[in-house]
């Protein structure tokens, strides 16, 4: 987790407009976060010390170098969806410890506290300039956005809910891959989520996958890669194997820009690399142009 993640974690009082309510939820989570005025942090890309508040006002993009900071799921939802339009679904899942790994529960609890999330993924209904969709967002600040049973289950539920609602799906991915601590169960989430995409797709519904930094491992090798339309944020790390594993395997340094959004677009895997500032507009346009089929 980078510095900015930790920093954003500390916001506690900032007013937010996201309703995290749905008919089945009696759980109300504390999501008021704030950043103190005058807090400075180092940009991971250009290294400049910058005022966080200013960066956030600049759409979470570094004013100096254009670096796209890793966004928290709740910030993403707030940023992309129309005000007050989000209705969270699939609340209440509890991560278990199938392999009895020492300290796994404690780790999960620590992340829960830090992020005010149940797990590394949230989803629900939302609107983008009035266009309805089912939106899912991974959060790399929750255990590197790794996919365990709960994340896999919620992703599958996302598509099932979209089928029920006859709506398109938009998912923002951000993941270090499968969650090691849940062993084979994590692996099987790849099949489960891919099957959910297939079912939604077979019924003729749209799925837009938005890859953000980083999207690797089992998530890349399942639902992240299966969008009808695949968009990436600039310079996001996207790959199946991690860069370090590849370097160890081939015993040499990776070339500049390898496994980055622009590289993957050149290689034919990304429809468009889109600056965060244009993202909402583009997603709205795509939803709008697919409205006939909903």
């Amino acid at each position, binding site marked *: 987790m980078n510095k900015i993640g930790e920093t954003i974690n500390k916001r506690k009082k900032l007013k937010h407009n996201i309703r995290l309510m749905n008919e*089945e939820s*009696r*759980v109300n989570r504390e999501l008021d976060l704030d950043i103190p005025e005058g807090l400075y942090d180092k940009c991971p890309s250009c290294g400049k010390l910058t005022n966080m508040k200013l960066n956030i006002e600049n759409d979470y993009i570094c004013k100096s170098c254009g670096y796209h900071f890793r966004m928290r799921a709740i910030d993403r939802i707030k940023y992309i969806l129309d005000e007050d339009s989000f209705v969270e679904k699939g*609340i*209440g*899942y*509890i*991560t*278990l410890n*199938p*392999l009895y*790994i020492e300290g796994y529960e404690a780790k999960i609890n620590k992340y829960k506290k830090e992020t005010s999330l149940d797990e590394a993924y949230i989803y629900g209904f939302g609107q983008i300039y009035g266009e309805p969709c089912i939106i899912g967002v991974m959060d790399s600040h929750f255990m590197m956005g790794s996919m*365990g*049973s*709960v994340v*896999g*289950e919620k992703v*599958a539920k996302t598509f099932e809910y979209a089928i029920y609602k006859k709506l398109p799906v938009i998912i923002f991915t951000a993941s270090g891959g*499968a969650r*090691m601590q*849940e*062993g*084979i*169960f*994590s*692996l*099987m*989430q*790849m*099949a*489960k989520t*891919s*099957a959910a*995409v*297939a*079912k939604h*797709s077979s019924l003729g519904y749209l799925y837009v996958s938005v890859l953000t930094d980083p999207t690797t*491992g*089992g998530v*890349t*090798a*399942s*639902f*992240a*890669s*299966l969008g009808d339309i695949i968009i990436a944020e600039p310079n996001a790390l996207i*790959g*199946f*194997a*991690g860069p370090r*594993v*590849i370097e160890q*395997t*081939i015993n040499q340094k*990776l070339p500049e820009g*390898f*496994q980055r959004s622009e590289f993957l677009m050149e*290689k*034919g*895997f990304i429809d468009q690399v889109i600056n965060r500032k244009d993202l909402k507009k583009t997603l709205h346009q795509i939803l709008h142009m697919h409205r006939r089929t909903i």
Partner: protein
Amino acid sequence: MNILDKERKLLVLEKNISDLGDTESVSKLVEEVEKFKKNEMTKLSSWDKVLLARHPKRPKSRDFIDYFSKDFIEFHGDRLFGDDKSIIGGIGSIDGIVFTIIAQQKGSTVEENIKRNFGMPHPEGYRKALRLMKQAEKFNRPILTLIDTPGAYPGLGAEERGQGFAIAENLKEMSRLTVPVIAVVIGEGGSGGALALGFANEVLMLENAIYSILSPEGYASIVWKDSTKAPLAAEQMKITAADLKDFDIIDEIIQEPFGGAHFNPELTFEKTKKCIMDTYYHLNGLARTELQYQRNAKVRNFGFLQRFNYDNLKEVRK
């Protein structure tokens, strides 16, 4: 003493016996060997199974195929970029039923291992597999996959040509198949690279095969920054056939002969074939849509989690 040490010791013991010829001390030695076999070589740790699953003499996919099917015809290429030799595909009849057979193939020799890339596929391998699965779908032909890979290859070309995209595409399309798909983990079932052939109606697994999200070495080096703790990792990760059967992730365990598959390959092949054909006839009763439904329903249930119920009723799904 791990299983490989034990195996070596057994060979020494047996050699001693045959060197002695027909003397009185033979019967004593024979007894000792039998005791060793019974007491030592049947107690296998998870790490022992990892070693057996990767045993250089362990029969490879092609050996199974050659035993199963006398008329196997190999089909090459993905029709897009290349022919990945770490995946063998084609059609062959087993007990009179024609299957599309797709298998990860490790080499038996150094040369073959280089040619087969140690059983680690590139995207073109998965795309060849997908092409042949769609062909099977067209001809309403059952699909048999044999899984034996350390994982999908993590290299430059593999990433450039969309390793993750190729695996994801396979998973998506396998969920749409309406023919019986039977997967057998015969050796190493390494990560998404294995799963890309493993989204099946029934998953069978050899007794000493392993199936895991990453290698025990990888796990150990991430968790303890020490890859020599792999044996401990193997235990913790629950990667043996018995563990996975407990989890309901696999459906059948195929018993291996004493000492592992390589001690009696023919017997291993025969048992595996029987299990495949039993499974086939079991699935054969299902209609095409039912086959698709069954495969997806199964995967839908994979996961170990709990959901908070607001009436304080807890529901556990495994």
